[in-house]
């Protein structure tokens, strides 16, 4: 007989929790409440997800079977892994193989095949990887360069992505509330082959393949690569904080400087973030911080954010930066800091602010939670398309050591993501692109060439092993991959292009001006960036980007003057003259081949292509000033920047590499053969628009092309002495 209500007893806490959670938790207090509320939610979510998945699995299996049958019915392989090593050069690879530095690639070549991989024209990453993704040439996928010109304004625009703000907004006082998402469009045409695989219910995980931003929906997972912007919307803007310059802010290419004012050991400054589009005339959002100078270190405390110690010549971990756009609205980014000096001046470098993969301000993966998953599993990682900060080294804000450390740190991050994808793909496709090989070769190629112009004012020996180190690092990763996947998987290691020297820059805008094809406004003999003083009403041709030359066509360019009838002859005339262009320094031609787009391509987007594709000889490239639309006093100039190797030359000079653990049936593979072959390996007929060939032998037959590459077949045009496979006197 117990007429009153008794309270639950603490020793029965666990039972009471299950039977009457509110009462039990309340008696332990809110601390327990926090724990149990969260845990209960997790348990419910986990069980719901698991049970839902298990219950739905038979239905999805039946639906899949009805729609596509067994997706692997005619497959020669159920698992394909493509490891893309951007810019890996067949010549350097061969050299390092002969030196015994790449034992795993050696095994791969001996077991399967190693060949040079013909690349796209132009031979640059956005173009070549688009061809890889779609299996078609540039006139069919529409990507001809990193940038192109806006025909309405002649201003540079990204070739791959168009970003527009939300169309409808709500104005509340000074705030602008977007009613919808910004419109981000991938301009690459045609269809990625992993989308075709998805339609056949073959899963894919695609990581960091260039020109995959914004991510396109498909049945699989994708993490975007090259062309993902930083939080400021640029392709990478670093920050440099220094007490050295007292004249105010200074601009760099690819970055900006903030002058620090020191009061004793304390410095107050601010990190400049993205534009605040939620506030009318909001300007850039900023994040104040305090820097306290110590002995060989600084302490940095970001207002309302993280505090950390940074030692001399070390990088911080990824630091979370949260910019307040409006009450309750924050934009998240991540950056790493590097302290290059403490005394006499504090010099602090900050990477571009990457989109935080755990809280992405823009979609950088498909589905959007994929980047969240990766960030939670492995911690923050670089998301910027061109993550390795080449401009910071080019502008000497950081030195070679800092750049190399940064590049290798990003490489390590991607290695984790890659092996997670491999572990999760028992059947299907994994493709991951590593940029490290490309960036390190761009920035350290001068070490292979003792007489490189870029060596004049810089040390030229300390990082002579940087390129072989990166190749060896990737080789070790390949060894790990081969050990993990066994023989069942088809493993391909490939690059989009190779590398060569970049000693001399050619300003084709200056050449066009001298030859009378490009006119400047009266009184001008030179022009600033982006055709500042160009008189379009008298200009027939101009150059923008890294290999292209555009005709100022009537009906296409806003102020076009070249009629359709004149167009073919003008293009042919320019091609002939360009191929005759001689470097006065050595009397040799600078351009191997200038190609008319209308002759080279027949796809639907040829009208958008540069009208002439300039294929330089090794050692040459568009000069830095040409790429930005300037007209200068000299056509030829020495390249003195740290960016000393390149591949924007005639594609025949810079093929990529193709390794596979299976023999193939084609002697000279082309990059567009790879997607065609992967679809075929999975037993599916490639779509009609694909231009490639099947690299592998028919089912049940052994490929006839295998083993290592014959090094004598490789072009060595313009290669630095340190890159030559057969240095003078050596036995081939």
């Amino acid at each position, binding site marked *: 007989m117990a007429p009153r209500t*008794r309270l639950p007893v603490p020793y029965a806490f666990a039972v009471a929790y299950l039977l009457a959670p509110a009462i039990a938790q309340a008696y332990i207090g809110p*601390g327990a409440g926090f724990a149990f509320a969260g845990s209960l939610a997790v348990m419910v979510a986990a069980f719901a997800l698991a049970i839902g998945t298990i219950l739905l699995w038979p239905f999805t299996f039946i639906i899949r079977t009805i729609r596509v049958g067994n997706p692997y019915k005619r497959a020669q392989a159920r698992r394909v892994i493509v490891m893309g090593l951007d810019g890996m050069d067949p010549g350097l690879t061969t050299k390092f193989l002969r030196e015994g530095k790449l034992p795993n690639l050696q095994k791969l070549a001996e077991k399967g095949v190693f060949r040079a991989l013909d690349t796209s024209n132009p031979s640059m990453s956005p173009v070549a990887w688009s061809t890889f993704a779609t299996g078609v040439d540039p006139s069919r996928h529409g990507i001809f360069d990193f940038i192109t010109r806006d025909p309405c304004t002649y201003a540079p625009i990204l070739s791959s992505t168009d970003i527009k703000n939300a169309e409808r907004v709500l104005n509340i006082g000074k705030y602008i509330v977007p009613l919808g998402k910004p419109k981000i469009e991938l301009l690459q045409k045609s269809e990625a082959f992993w989308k075709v695989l998805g339609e056949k219910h073959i899963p894919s995980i695609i990581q960091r393949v260039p020109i995959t931003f914004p991510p396109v929906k498909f049945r699989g997972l994708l993490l975007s690569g090259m062309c993902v912007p930083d939080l400021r919307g640029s392709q990478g803007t670093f920050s440099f904080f220094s007490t050295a310059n007292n004249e105010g802010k200074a601009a760099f290419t690819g970055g900006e400087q903030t002058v620090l004012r020191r009061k004793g050991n304390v410095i107050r400054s601010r990190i400049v973030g993205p534009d605040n589009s939620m506030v009318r005339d909001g300007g850039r959002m900023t994040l104040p911080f305090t820097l306290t100078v110590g002995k060989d270190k600084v302490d940095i405390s970001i207002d309302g954010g993280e505090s950390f110690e940074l030692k001399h010549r070390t990088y911080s971990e990824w630091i979370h930066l949260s910019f307040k756009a409006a009450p309750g609205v924050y934009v998240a980014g991540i950056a790493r800091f590097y302290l290059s000096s403490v005394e006499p001046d504090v010099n602090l470098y900050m990477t571009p602010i990457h989109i935080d993969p755990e809280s992405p301000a823009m979609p950088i993966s498909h589905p959007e939670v994929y980047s969240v998953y990766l960030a939670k599993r492995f911690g923050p990682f670089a998301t910027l398309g061109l993550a390795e900060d080449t401009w910071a080294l080019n502008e000497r804000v950081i030195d070679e050591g800092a750049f190399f450390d940064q590049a290798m740190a990003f490489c390590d991050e991607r290695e984790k993501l890659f092996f997670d994808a491999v572990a999760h793909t028992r059947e299907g496709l994994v493709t991951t692109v590593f940029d490290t090989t490309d960036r390190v070769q761009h920035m350290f190629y001068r070490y292979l060439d003792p007489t490189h112009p870029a060596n004049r004012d810089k040390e030229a020996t300390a990082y002579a092993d940087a390129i072989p180190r990166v190749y060896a690092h990737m080789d070790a990763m390949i060894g790990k991959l081969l050990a993990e996947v066994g023989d069942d998987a088809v493993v391909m290691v490939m690059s989009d292009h190779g590398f060569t020297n970049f000693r001399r820059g050619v300003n084709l805008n200056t050449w066009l001006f001298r030859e009378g094809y490009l006119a400047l406004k009266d009184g001008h003999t030179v022009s600033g960036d982006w055709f500042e003083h160009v008189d379009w009403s008298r200009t027939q041709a101009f150059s923008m980007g890294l290999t292209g030359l555009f005709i100022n066509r009537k009906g296409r360019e806003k102020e076009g003057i070249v009629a359709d009838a004149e167009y073919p002859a003008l293009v042919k005339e320019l091609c002939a003259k360009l191929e005759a262009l001689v470097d006065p320094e050595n009397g040799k031609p600078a351009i191997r081949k200038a190609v008319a787009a209308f002759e080279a391509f027949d796809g639907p987007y040829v009208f958008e292509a540069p009208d002439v594709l300039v294929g330089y000889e090794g050692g040459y490239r568009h000069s830095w000033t040409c790429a930005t639309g300037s007209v200068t006093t000299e056509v030829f100039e020495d390249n003195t920047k740290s960016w000393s190797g390149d591949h924007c030359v005639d594609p025949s000079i810079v093929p990529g590499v193709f390794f596979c653990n299976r023999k193939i049936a084609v002697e000279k593979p082309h990059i567009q053969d790879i997607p065609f072959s992967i679809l075929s390996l999975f037993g599916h007929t490639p779509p009609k628009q694909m231009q490639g060939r099947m690299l592998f032998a028919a089912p049940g037959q052994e490929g006839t092309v295998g083993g290592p590459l014959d090094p004598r077949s490789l072009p060595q045009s313009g290669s630095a002495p340190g890159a030559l496979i057969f240095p003078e006197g050596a036995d081939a």
Partner: protein
Amino acid sequence: MGLFNRICTAIFDVLLAPFGHGRPWFDLVLWPLVGGILALLVIKAVSNQAGITRAKNFIQVHLLEVVLFRDDLRTVLPATVKSLGYNVLYLGYNIVPMVIMFVPMTAILVQLVSNYAYAPLPVGSTALVVAKLDADVGGVTPADVKLDLPEGVSLDAPPVRTPDGEVAWRLRLDAPGDHVLTLHAGAATETKTLAVGGEPRKVSVLRTKSWEALLYPAEAVPSAESPFEEISIQARKDQAMPFFPDGESGILGWFFGVSLLAGFLLKDLFGVTL
């Protein structure tokens, strides 16, 4: 136990006095809020914040793994098990702060229940009073137990005595007031207050020797030699907050909800990971 109750009651009688029983909402907002903040401070001070962050993170990782790789049961099942495993780990990280918070949180909650969960019984109604004898003391049987009624309270029915040592009386409550019932068992005497009518005020529904005295601190704990193990009175539950159940479960639910909400809203301010 008795000393602890006296100290807590004395403190809370002062703390709860400003607004009194006429406006219980003030105390019922303030004290859960204090409880939430106290919990945050304790969690920050004694919990393994890095461990909690890591455990939560891996719970999310494996739940996302289930979502992302839902077509692959060989991934889904281990991921589910791992998420539950990390859930257990997460609970483990919360045990120390839970134990530390148990005493102050219980003290606060008990005082709130004691003050606001029950209302005086209405004049004219009947009430059941139950006395339970302590078998360990012995020497007294239910037949030996007598009840002296104060003025304003009368016996509605003869007492019921059970073989297991309980005696129950049904009383008629004729007049308002804090009546004192006197119970005799042999030479021993105990009292029990009985609140009838009038303004809302602290109501004691149980006097007991057991550990439950911690939960009913309004009256003194009977001495160890007392033949009475406990004396209880039928409670009239009060609804302290709208939309919440009456009695202690309403206060419990309210306290739980508000303190939880306060904790979640203020966790970033206090730099605490929950």
